[in-house]
Structure formats: C-alpha cells, structure tokens
C-alpha cells in the first residue's frame, strides 16, 4: 500500500475539477483489478473444493495408504496410486535429465553472438514453435515415428546393458523411457525460452568486466554468466517440471498404461494424468472418487515443486 500513496498524492495535486474524470477512472481501474485478483483466487479455491468434495469417499476408504498401494481394481473397487505417482515422478525426472543440458546449452548458444542475429532470431522462433504443437500430435508422432525409430537403439542397450535393472526388459513399443524422451522434447521450449531471456538480460557490464580481467569466452560463460542467470535458469527448469508432471495426452498414448511398477524403464508404466485421462469417461462411484484423489495428489505434487522453485530461486538471488 505504501507505493500507492505517492500515486494518490499525485492525483490529489491534480484533483481540481479538471482532473476529477481521471481520478474516477483511476478508482474504477483500481477496484477492477482488485476484483479480478480476488476472482482468480476464488476460482482456485472453488476447483480445490470440488476436487476435495468428490475425492472424500476415496480418502475416507483408503486414507494415506492410497499413496503406497499398487492395486487399481475397478471390479472390487480397491484403488491405490503408487504406480502412478512413481511413473509421474520418474518420467518427469528422465525428461529433465535430457531437457536440462540440451535446453540450457541451446539457451547459451542463442544468447551469445556466435552467429549473426539474422540467423539466431529464426532459430529462437523455431524453438518457440515447438511449444505450439498440441500434445496429441506429439503422441501420434511418438507412436508412428519416434518410438519405431529409436527402438533398435533401445534393443541394443538392452542387449549390451541388460544386467542393469533399469534396462533389464526387452523394450516394449509403449514404454516409460521412450515416453519420457518425447516429454523432454515437449518441455524443451520452456527451458530454452526463459533461460535465454535471462541470459540476454544479464547486464553487459558483467561480461565486459570478465573479459577485462582476461577471462576467455568459455570462462565467462561458465563462471560469470551462468551463475548470474542461475535463478532464471532454475525457474525455467521448475516451470518445465510443472508441465512434465501434468502432461496428459502424449503420455496416455505412449506410456503403456500398465498400473504396475516395473523397475525396468523399457517396460510399460503409468502416470497420474494418463490414468485420469484413460478412465475418467467411464468411471463412476468410488472409482471416480479415487481418480479425483489422484488429481489432488498431482496438485499437491505440483504445489510442492512450485514452493521448492520459489525457495531455490530466492536463495540464488540472495547469493547474487
């Protein structure tokens, strides 16, 4: 409110009859924004409340054991979310494993003057177009092109490194690992766009200073620019993680939807959002309630990620 007072003082100065119209507009605008801000909060509370009210029967019957149970049996109405929670976290983790180095690397490249701007701008634009592809198209692309293309490679990995538990099964045509790779491509634009913006907005004095001290370009990037932009880069990674956790359609089509835990990444798995997308249409009663319970778990998971992001970003800003 303190910042508002200067603005109010200014309006007071101008509050002769001539400016009363302006004052009125100001006030209307102020209340309009207040209402909108409260409105968005109310929508969130409303959605959370509806989720909770439908999920209550499932919460009552399964309690916290829901999170650790691996049964999903609509016939006997016994439900547990462990395989989905496991699949959701693991698929997002694998996606980040590939998307972070690739995304940050591209962001650094696009923010440096390696190439003339005439070429860099179209590349940056292309990256953003990746984000505009609907996820059902990614799913289709995964089914018909990407998975058949990488399957021979995965088979080779299975033959050569089959003794490693995570590569221990013969690669299935629908599986966690390949689905996670598609997910990595889907979250790349988020990481690239935000990291690049951060890198570009770093004050040029930092770079000039580093060069002045005799640092090479490589040293400047790794020791000055990336640490300076770290809060933005981490923020982009957390946003990407948020998208990966909630991604639905592409995973429902690619992940194999088996409600069991298999230690091998090459076996079919399931995720929370994929299960909801699959079963919501025909669910009723306790099954529907259990699906809403899963949705709540996903919401809390995403909330935890966002809180963590705020915390980390805040920390690195203090380091600066």
């Amino acid at each position, binding site marked *: 409110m303190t910042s508002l007072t200067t603005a109010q003082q200014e309006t007071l100065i101008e509050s002769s009859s001539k400016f009363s119209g302006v004052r009125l507009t100001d006030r209307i605008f102020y209340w309009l924004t207040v209402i909108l801000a409260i409105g968005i909060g109310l929508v969130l509370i409303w959605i959370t409340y509806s989720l909770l009210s439908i999920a209550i029967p499932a919460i009552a019957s399964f309690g916290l054991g829901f999170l650790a149970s691996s*049964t999903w*049996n609509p016939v006997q109405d016994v439900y547990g979310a462990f395989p989905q929670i496991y699949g959701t976290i693991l698929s997002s983790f694998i996606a980040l494993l590939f998307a972070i180095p690739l995304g940050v690397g591209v962001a650094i490249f696009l923010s440096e003057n390696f190439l003339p701007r005439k070429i860099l701008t179209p590349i*940056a634009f292309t990256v953003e177009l990746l984000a505009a592809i609907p996820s059902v198209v990614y799913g289709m692309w995964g089914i018909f092109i990407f998975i058949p293309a990488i399957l021979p490679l995965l088979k080779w990995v299975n033959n050569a490194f089959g003794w490693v538990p995570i590569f221990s099964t013969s690669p*299935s045509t629908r599986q966690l690992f390949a689905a996670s790779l598609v997910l990595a491509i889907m979250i790349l*634009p988020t990481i690239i766009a935000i990291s690049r913006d951060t890198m*570009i907005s770093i004050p040029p004095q930092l770079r000039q200073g580093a060069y002045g001290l005799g640092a090479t370009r490589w040293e400047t990037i790794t020791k000055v620019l990336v640490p300076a932009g770290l809060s933005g880069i981490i923020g982009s990674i957390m946003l990407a993680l948020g998208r990966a956790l909630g991604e639905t359609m592409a995973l429902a089509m690619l992940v194999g*939807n088996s409600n069991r835990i298999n230690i091998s990444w090459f076996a079919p798995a399931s995720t929370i959002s994929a299960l909801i997308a*699959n*079963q919501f249409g025909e669910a009723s009663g306790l099954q529907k309630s259990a699906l809403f319970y899963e949705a709540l778990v996903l919401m809390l998971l995403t909330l935890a990620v966002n809180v963590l992001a705020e915390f980390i970003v805040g920390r690195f800003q203090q380091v600066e």
Partner: protein
Amino acid sequence: MTSLSCLKRRAFLATLTAASLGLAVSCAPTSTDVSTSPTSGAPTSPQAGGGGSTVTLSGAGASFPAPLYQRWFADYNKENSNVQISYQSVGSGAGVEQFLAGTVDFGASDAPLKDEEREKFKAANNGADPIQVPMTSGSIVFAYNLDGVDELKLSRNAYCGIVTGEISNWNDPAIASSNQGVTLPDEPIQWVYRSDGSGTTFGFTTHLAAACPNWTAGADKSVEWATGTGAKGNEGITAQLQQTPGALGYVEFSYARENGLKMAAIENKAGNIIEPSPESGALAFKGETVPPDFALIVADPSDAQAYPITTLTWMLFYPGYSDAAKADAIKNVVTWALTDGKAGAEELGYIPIDEELATKVQDAVAQIK
C-alpha cells in the same frame, strides 16, 4: 533496444499461447461430436418425419456403436430433413450419467442400466421406468500380428491362459496343439488391452469371467490386468497391434475388419473353433429369452456354431417427452434404424438384431408419450 523488448514480448506471448494451447488440448474430452446437419442438395421427403417443423434430438453415450449411430442419423436426416439428431460418443458411463441428469434426449450404453441407476431414474421421474432397448450387437475378436500366420486358432485353454499371463510364448503347446502345420515363432506374446474404460472391455471380460475358470479379475469396463500393455481407444489398440510383431489384443469386429487386422478363430462352449463373422455372431442370441428390460447378456453362448463373444448395445429413452414431436421422431427413428438401417449396420460390420427382438423393441418404444 526496442527490437529486443519486442522480441522478448513475442517470446513470452508465444510460450504463453503454447502453454494455454497445450492445456486446452490436454484437457479436451476425447469425444467426437458429429451433428447431422441437413445437406442442402439431398433429396427430401418431408412427410416421413414427425410434423412439419424441425425436430432436434441430442444423444450421448457408448463409443462402440458410435460409427453406426452417426451413419444412421445422417442417413435418416437425408430422408427426413426436418429431424436432426446429434450423437456424442462420450462413453457409456458419461452417457448414462447425462441420461439420468436429463441433459440429453436419449442415452446409449454398452452395459445395461445397473439397479442403482434404475432406482435413481425412478426417483427422479415419479417412479416411471426408463425405456432401455437394444439397437444392435457386435462381436469382439482377438486380433493379432504374427508374420506368416494367417489363420490362428485359439482353444479355450490357450486364450484363457494368455489373458492371465500363464501362457506367455507363441510356441506354447496349448496354442500349437490347435494350429497343426503352422510354424509359431519362439517369441513372447505381447498382450494389448484397452486402458480406457470401455464397453468392449466389459463385453470381453464378461465372457472371460464365464468361460475361464482361471480368470479372477472379474468383469467391468476396466479391470486389473496381470500382464500386457494398455492402449487408449480402438485406434490405440490398432496402432499397437500393427507396430508390434507378436502382439495380440481384443477389438470390435467392425473395427478389426475396417483396419485389416488379422483375427483369430476361437473355441466356443460346444468345443468348436469358430471364425468371427456377422453370421456366427448372430447365433449367440439364438434361443435366448429376452428379459422385460431387454438386459440380455449372453456371456458364453451355447449354440454349437456361435461365435462366443458377442454383445448387445442399448439406447435409453425417457418414458415421456414434453414435446410430442420429439416422441414421434424417436419412434420413427428407432423403427427406421431396425428396418431400413439394417443394411448400413451390416456394411459397417455390426450384427443387426433379429426380427423377433426388433418387433419387441418397437413395441416398447411405441409406449413413449
């Protein structure tokens, strides 16, 4: 500097649009909404419908008969341009829910109404019963992908073992014994099931529960599978079967035929190995008595030549409509579908219900007010 900020804003906008786009797509319900609007050039015969003014009916429900319903309603509209029917294949569960909530003019379901749903309907409609009638039936087949094997035969032991994971290799003696002279590969069986809730799974597991003593997972629109990979929708199953050598899964006969999938002949209750076809499927209901609410489920038909997995699919109507024109239109459409609509059903691979049952259905529908 201006160009930079402009670029940044564009970048932000692009990500924002993309994010909201992705959100919108991933949240969109997977339903096909086809409304049958009148085609301007089509020949019209106005008197066949009900009255002179335009009647609009909307329905929602099962996805298995959706291709047939959409074709029926489009064909009917060509002949009766004043009746427009839209059908949304949102799934049986959602269809029943919308029917009970009264937000549609008719519902459609692959499973007959449950007792509690019936009670709910009665409570909301002054004790009146909903009108539930079968419209068509279809077989569910085992479709497979095996190079060099064109006429796979599966005995009851074989397919019961495969669905539970007890038989996991194609050259298992249980499969080989009914396929003399065929070289079966030494490869794992890649079982594929529907991951989304579906009437197909309901029909398929209803049969398994009746025919397989080792099947303990029960019968429902989605069940807990002990083995295999889940694919979303008929199209997901089809894609996976076509891509995966050694894959075996279950789909509707009409869908398998349309996509050129290879179908296995399977052993029926009498011990004969029967190829899926509309004729062998129709035999499933031969000699069965139809209950008054038409909730006829033949889990394991006893006719010696019947294909064993065939299910009916139902439409749900209200006992009375406030608009008399709607009631008339419904009666006319049902009668038309069960008589003139037969040809379209056969063309698409569905099995039209026989004349005796069709007459009973028309009697039931005639009571709509």
